[in-house]
């Protein structure tokens, strides 16, 4: 009870909870789920972009793309480490992913069908991710907040690179411009849905806000994001596939099209265009890599033994 009040005080003070601190089990559980989902998203999120590394249309773009996908692997690692501080091992977290018990960001279950998707993913998907994540840098759990600081810094770099890809295409040939518009058309709605269901249908948000994990509601974040891209798309000379998108001066909010939440739920359930492929790729890497991990473990054990002897 003393622990609980100390915890409440820390939260109340906007101080940070650290691994050694007592915390309520639901807080630990919620954070473990959220951080590991985030880590899984980074790892699965490598795939749509890795899909274009070998075909990148210039060496410069290939190099930037490789670096980006590699950064995502790095983010995955920090986040798994942060999650581990809450007491669940990485192997267990990975197992949750491979067996389908853990989720990851639904957006990565869409396919990266053309090169411009590398731009749209950077601009819209990373953009939405940043909008979500910047407030998380102040999340009440220390290791998570600190991991987020590093992640956000790199992500905003990625977002700019994505925007640049689209900018080059939009200033390119007619076909390139079409590719860019096509990619934006496909990623616009899914990226808006990355903020989660509307506030009145998001039951878990209130608790997360109270715990100062979450700082803004889904709709607040979505508003901020849509406002930003509505401006940026003009620079591209392209359009968002949302004819009536506008800022309602009276309500002081952006009015966007109705989002397809049925599709969203269906993708979350595992039925998106690429869920099966994404998970199978992870499982395959795990399966085919088993002998390597076993050998590394065996070797480490031998080394330890010979050091002891």
């Amino acid at each position, binding site marked *: 009870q003393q622990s609980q009040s100390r915890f409440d005080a820390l939260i109340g003070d906007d101080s940070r909870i650290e691994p050694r601190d007592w915390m309520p089990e639901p807080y630990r559980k919620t954070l473990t789920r959220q951080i590991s989902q985030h880590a899984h998203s980074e790892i699965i999120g490598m795939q749509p972009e890795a899909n274009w590394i070998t075909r990148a249309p210039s060496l410069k773009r290939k190099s930037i793309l490789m670096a980006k996908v590699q950064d995502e692997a790095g983010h995955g690692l920090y986040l798994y480490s942060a999650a581990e501080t809450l007491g669940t091992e990485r192997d267990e977290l990975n197992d949750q992913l491979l067996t389908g018990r853990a989720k990851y960001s639904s957006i990565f279950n869409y396919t990266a069908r053309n090169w411009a998707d590398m731009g749209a993913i950077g601009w819209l998907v990373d953009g939405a991710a940043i909008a979500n994540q910047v407030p998380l840098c102040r999340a009440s759990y220390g290791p998570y907040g600190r991991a987020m600081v590093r992640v956000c810094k790199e992500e905003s770099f990625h977002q700019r690179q994505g925007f640049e890809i689209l900018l080059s295409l939009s200033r390119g040939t007619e076909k390139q411009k079409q590719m860019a518009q096509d990619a934006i058309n496909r990623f616009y709605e899914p990226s808006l849905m990355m903020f989660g269901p509307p506030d009145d249908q998001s039951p878990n948000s209130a608790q997360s806000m109270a715990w100062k994990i979450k700082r803004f509601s889904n709709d607040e974040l979505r508003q901020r994001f849509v406002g930003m891209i509505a401006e940026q798309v003009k620079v591209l000379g392209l359009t968002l596939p949302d004819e009536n998108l506008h800022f309602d001066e009276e309500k002081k909010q952006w009015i966007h099209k109705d989002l397809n939440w049925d599709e969203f739920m269906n993708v979350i359930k595992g039925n998106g265009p690429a869920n099966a492929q994404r998970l199978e790729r992870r499982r395959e890497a795990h399966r*085919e890599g088993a002998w390597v991990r076993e050998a590394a473990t065996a070797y480490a054990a*031998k080394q330890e033994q010979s050091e002891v002897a």
Partner: protein
Amino acid sequence: SDEVAQYALHLGDDALILAQRLSHWISRAPEIEEDIALGNIALDVLGHARSFLTYAGLAWDKSEDDLAYWREEEDFTSLQIVEQPNGHFGVTIMRQLIISIYQHLLYSKLLESTDETIAAICAKAVKEVDYHRDHSAAWTIRLGQGTEESAAKMRHALEVLWPYTGEMFQDEELHRTLGDVAVLPSTLREAWEKEITDVLAEAGLEIPKSGMAMAHGRVGEHSEHLGFILAEMQVLARKHPGASW
């Protein structure tokens, strides 16, 4: 000169094709740390390719992308060892061990190239290649001494790749023409053999008895793999001639 450019092209093509092969591992490695490590190596090597190709292209008024995307198979001058399929992780590691020991020796010597640009590119590259060499040597030893399965896989990797090591040490007319700009490949052989033998010995592996494949990648005679590599690498660029990205 045209010859210097041709030499830079050799070095650049080796690096480009190797980077292309390595990059396929990203998102497929046995553990995330290796997605990062192999990605790093691929990225370094791609960087070397870009420097060498950019330099080569100066002589012919071509950009790195002109050279990477718009040449045909027979115009590529890469060694066949870098074209060899990734296979299982052990094959990729063994290929990397073979080539990075080689590149480390080569770039180290090229620090004294009388061509300043080549020397400068190598000055940066040699440090990176040094890490690649350490990384692949550490894995070779770990896998060679790991489990019975991993040792068998490493023996297999070595057997499959060994026939392509001979080509690395073939002297060409070009090398003689270039004198102190270049390094005569045959002069690297002894040091390379010593170094790889040491690593393999520590890994409990033996040099295979097999002979060497007739391989002439330097004059555009490639293994049957390169056509597939290029089809994939060039497909998008070629659909948009003249486009910027």
